[in-house]
């Protein structure tokens, strides 16, 4: 279980990354943190991992007071920092094996575990190539493999799938599921709504250092009063002229995209029909948790794939 109370982090220079954050999550399963860039996700992950000191407030992870006993939480945790890659001089096999041995595995165990995750993430063909020769996505897979192979009770993964292709991403989700079944607590940050909704047991939506919403997927979606979302894309700088045709008050304009929300699904379908005749590029979709960022958060919403 993660509990935070009035958690505040102000960096030197006065940047407030977290502002009185209160969280209470289940004790196991996959807990996702979603939010636009600068929402404070990475700061929160680093505090939960025991590597960053909060300015004030209480943090508890799996029964451990993280501020008082950071080493206790670090012992039970493995952490994949955002954008982390292995050193170019090593091979994936050397990196994963060395990381596992550093954590205390014997050479034999480390070797077996490394080969297991290498097979799982289909890294066999490149396991003896230098990491500097690999693509960014593959390098990320190598780091994620090492963290997953660590078998720690708590795994903190900060945007682990941002550089992965769709197939590698699904393999990664499958690996997380199998860890979850073994009773691990997995904390993950992501920008991908599909990822968040398909793997998470508990979702925390963050915006500008605050918690906008938290709960399981069902309850979060239920808390949104809208059912459908229409997105209009246009390079036309006068994109706002279409706003009148949308017939709803809940409209957000993001660069060359308009996002509008509807409670009535039939009404949304009719509007899509009308707008399609104007030759616009339109997408209609059900509401997702990332819509909470727009509806309750701010305009720093990120366009996701």
């Amino acid at each position, binding site marked *: 279980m993660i509990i935070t109370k009035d958690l505040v982090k102000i960096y030197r220079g006065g940047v407030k990354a977290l502002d009185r954050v209160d969280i209470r999550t289940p004790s196991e399963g996959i807990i996702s943190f979603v939010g636009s860039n600068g929402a404070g996700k990475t700061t929160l992950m680093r505090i939960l991992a025991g590597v960053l000191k909060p300015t004030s407030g209480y943090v508890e992870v799996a029964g451990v007071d993280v501020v008082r006993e950071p080493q206790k939480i670090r012992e039970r945790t493995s952490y994949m920092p955002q954008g982390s890659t292995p050193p170019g001089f090593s091979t994936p096999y050397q990196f994963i094996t060395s990381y596992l041995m*550093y954590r205390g595995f014997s050479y034999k165990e480390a070797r077996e575990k490394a080969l297991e995750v290498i097979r799982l993430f289909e890294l066999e063909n490149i396991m003896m190539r230098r990491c500097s020769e690999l693509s960014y996505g593959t390098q990320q897979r190598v780091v994620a493999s090492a963290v997953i192979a660590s078998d720690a009770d708590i795994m903190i993964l900060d945007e682990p799938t941002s550089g992965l292709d769709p197939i590698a991403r699904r393999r990664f989700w499958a690996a997380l599921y199998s860890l979850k079944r073994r009773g691990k607590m997995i904390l993950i940050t992501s920008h991908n709504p599909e990822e968040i909704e398909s793997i998470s047991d508990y979702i925390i939506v963050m915006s500008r250092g605050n918690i906008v919403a938290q709960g399981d997927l069902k309850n979060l979606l239920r808390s949104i009063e809208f059912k459908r979302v229409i997105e209009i894309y246009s390079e036309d700088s006068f994109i706002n002229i279409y706003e009148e045709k949308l017939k709803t008050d809940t409209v957000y304009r993001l660069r060359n995209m308009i996002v509008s929300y509807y409670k009535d699904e039939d009404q949304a379908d009719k509007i899509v029909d009308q707008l399609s005749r104007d030759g616009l590029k339109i997408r209609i979709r059900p509401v997702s948790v990332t819509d909470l960022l727009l509806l309750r958060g701010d305009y720093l919403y990120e366009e996701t794939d």
Partner: protein
Amino acid sequence: MRRLIRELRAITVLGLFNGYIPVKNNPLWIISFTLGPVSYLFLLYMIGRENIVEYAFIGGLVLSMSASAYGLLGDIIWYRNSLKIQDMFIVTPNSIYTYALGIALSSYIWALPSLAIFIIIGFLMSILRNIYVLGVIIGLTTILWINTALFTLYISRFIRSEKYVWPLVSIISLGLSVFPPVYYPVTILPRDMWMIALIPPTASSALLIESFSGMIDVENFYILYSIFNLAVQTMALAILHKRSLVLSE
């Protein structure tokens, strides 16, 4: 006890990972790293012949060790800022000190081929005359490594941007190994300057090696001063380093 063994093993694993694997995967690194100190030795031998070759030998040993330990700065910032895997190694069952010592050990491993070459040259040129002098050299270069590695680990926390790292490494490494009395004996400086000239740990180490191997003859005061200087600096850096290794703010 089990924990200590685990931590010592982790230090060795990280030391070998960052110190041995790069060299194993690309042996050119050994030549690249060793060439600097050896080329100084060659140059001084060609110009000064036997007169100053002994000092060039000591200078080469000290530069090999200190350049490697100061070069650690690049690795620390690279792991922290570019690769972003420092936190990955800190969030483990090992303490933060284990990470710091593992990275520091890698710099010692980096320096080993260069030290070995110098020791062989020393025996071939009859500068190293017995095992006692060899022991003194190994002991003093190890103390120098601890001192310079602690200094590097300490200053790394103040460096935020990678663009300062490599120029700084060169400035510190050459500034503390070539200008102070490392490649030349302190005795050629005016006596009034000796105490100041011996402040850099590289100069104190060089004086002790020169003195114990019988190359120079200085009063006991300067030997004790050099030992005291190395000890105080190393302890002060260890205390500063311990204080800096709390949770990052």
